[in-house]
């Protein structure tokens, strides 16, 4: 049984109603428990939990420090290509957007690697649009070895692949894969993915099963907040996490919570999530799952990041560019996937984090640890 099969038993509308009907008593009950259920998680992301935000934040901070210590992991995205054969209504790389398209050559990749290394990073996230012929397995095979020889930890956020392809890339040094479902509501999903392979809701949803079977070290999941009701989508992320942890129990998990922001496509989100609600969601994830990694990108403002970073987050990007070649070429070229809100340098970010009493961790993995798990579990 895959998560797609599992999801057939979860009714979107019932979840939405159930979350909306949570009361103060449900929230207080959830806050009083040591181990929270999915039902408790619903209470914590419900409107009824809003008055309890400070309590949630206190507990979230305490759990995060207990589990992860006084540290924050740093990573940086490295964009390989903005070629894309999909039409996704919300994305700057969408094929109908008139931007200059480019894919890094090996020489350009070397230059980007050098620039990123110079900033101090040892954990890198490779990102590309979905263009399976030009930025497919042949390209990944070529670059992964090269990138991995320079970094301790290598994540990828590219098009979903087959299990055997993941197995091959893991053998070459891939440590983690991020694959966001965008929305767990198939109807909304269909309305936003108008062309290309990404239209296949099921194939995308089952990516985490293929990754789990391939034995990848870490999987990142999440919903694109704003496509549909954020509470219901975030609840589905928690259900997904719960399923994955019980099924692929040797894999680590991380969650991101990208909020939709203006991009080249001029897309307007269906639901807007306030800062207060994002804090509520971060704390709810932490209370529900003390072990999951929570990642915050530079989509968020400097002010927000400064204040949120002790509350539950475990990894941060900084100094990010969302365009291929962005670390070595002119940053003002119009190629980007989304706008960066916090453009402080990694050095500046490190200063802020230290002021908050936390240590910045640049390296928390090692190339020698990338031994694939025995298959079949």
């Amino acid at each position, binding site marked *: 049984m895959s998560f797609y099969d599992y999801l057939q038993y979860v009714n979107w509308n019932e979840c939405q109603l159930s979350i909306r009907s949570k009361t103060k008593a449900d929230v*207080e009950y959830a806050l009083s428990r040591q*181990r929270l259920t999915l039902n408790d998680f619903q209470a914590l992301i419900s409107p009824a939990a809003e008055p309890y935000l400070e309590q949630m934040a206190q507990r979230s901070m305490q759990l995060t420090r207990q589990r992860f210590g006084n540290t924050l992991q740093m990573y940086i995205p490295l964009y390989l290509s903005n070629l894309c054969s999909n039409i996704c209504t919300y994305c700057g790389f969408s094929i109908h957007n008139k931007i200059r398209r480019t894919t890094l050559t090996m020489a350009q990749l070397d230059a980007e690697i050098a620039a990123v290394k110079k900033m101090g990073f040892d954990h890198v996230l490779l990102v590309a649009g979905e263009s399976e012929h030009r930025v497919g397995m042949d390209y990944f095979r070529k670059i992964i070895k090269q990138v991995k020889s320079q970094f301790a930890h290598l994540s990828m956020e590219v098009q979903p692949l087959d299990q055997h392809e993941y197995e091959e890339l893991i053998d070459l040094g891939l440590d983690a894969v991020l694959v966001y479902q965008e929305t767990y509501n198939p109807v909304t999903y269909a309305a936003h993915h108008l062309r290309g392979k990404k239209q296949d809701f099921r194939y995308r949803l089952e990516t985490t099963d293929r990754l789990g079977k391939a034995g990848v070290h870490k999987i990142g999941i999440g919903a694109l907040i704003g496509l549909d009701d954020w509470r219901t989508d975030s609840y589905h992320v928690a259900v997904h996490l719960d399923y994955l942890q019980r099924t692929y129990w040797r894999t680590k998990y991380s969650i991101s919570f990208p909020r939709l922001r203006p991009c080249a496509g001029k897309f307007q989100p269906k639901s807007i999530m306030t800062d207060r609600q994002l804090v509520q969601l971060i704390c709810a994830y932490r209370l529900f799952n003390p072990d999951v990694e929570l990642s915050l990108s530079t989509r968020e403002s400097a002010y927000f990041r400064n204040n949120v970073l*002790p509350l539950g987050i475990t990894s941060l990007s900084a100094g990010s560019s969302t365009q291929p070649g962005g670390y070595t070429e002119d940053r003002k070229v119009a190629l980007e996937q989304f706008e960066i809100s916090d453009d402080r340098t990694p050095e500046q970010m490190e200063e802020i984090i230290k002021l908050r009493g936390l240590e910045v961790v640049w390296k928390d993995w090692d190339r020698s640890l990338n031994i694939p798990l025995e298959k079949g579990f």
Partner: protein
Amino acid sequence: MLKIADKTFSSRLFTGTGKFNDKATMVAALQASGSELVTMALKRVDLQNKDDDILQPLIANEMHLLPNTSGARTAKDAVFAAKLAREALETHWVKLEIHPDPRYLLPDPIETLLAAEQLVKEGFVVLPYVHADPVLCKRLESVGVAAVMPLGSPIGSNQGLKTKVFLEIIIEQSNIPVIIDAGLGAPSHAATAMEMGADAVLVNTAIAVAPDPVVMSRAFALAVQAGRMAFETGLAGQQQQALASSPLTAFLEDVG
């Protein structure tokens, strides 16, 4: 309703046949427990003879038999015993017990995993008795056992849930039923296990050697029901103090 493999159970109390002082008491106690799954050591019954004094009353009372491999010290022993039981008792259910240690009867995790894998391949419904080891339970789940039976404390010790923190992890992670086996000495231990979310408990010694096994058996049955009911409705939590100031979230008020 609890479902294990293709069988559903209305009682979440499983029992055993060992240590009773006579067979009539055993039967009366098992009946009073309402238990629908009863384990018996293969080594204690005469497989050639259906009139065996343990077997006969169980069959007569239509109890679902769960032969166990107690006495086996290796995977090989256990697989052989399970096959014998299948042939003689016409059940492909087996409680896999491999304890090479004759003092505490602690289960051998390595031999248990090996035997479980082989027995599953041969079509058995395997319920392995194991230490409260969450990783071992996941490994057993992945080879296809029907449930796991982690221990609360050493078998027959009546010490209760000494392994509680690990049992909680096992219950949280498991996709198959978790039956807390061994060490439950009082109905309150059984109730606690059920409140934690265990799917069932198996109790033998605490019933068999109680001054009145029939009454104690009934007491365990009630405790299991009470604990399950409490789990399903959710325990009341401990109240947390409200906070007067908002040091962590006040920043949200500062912006428009």
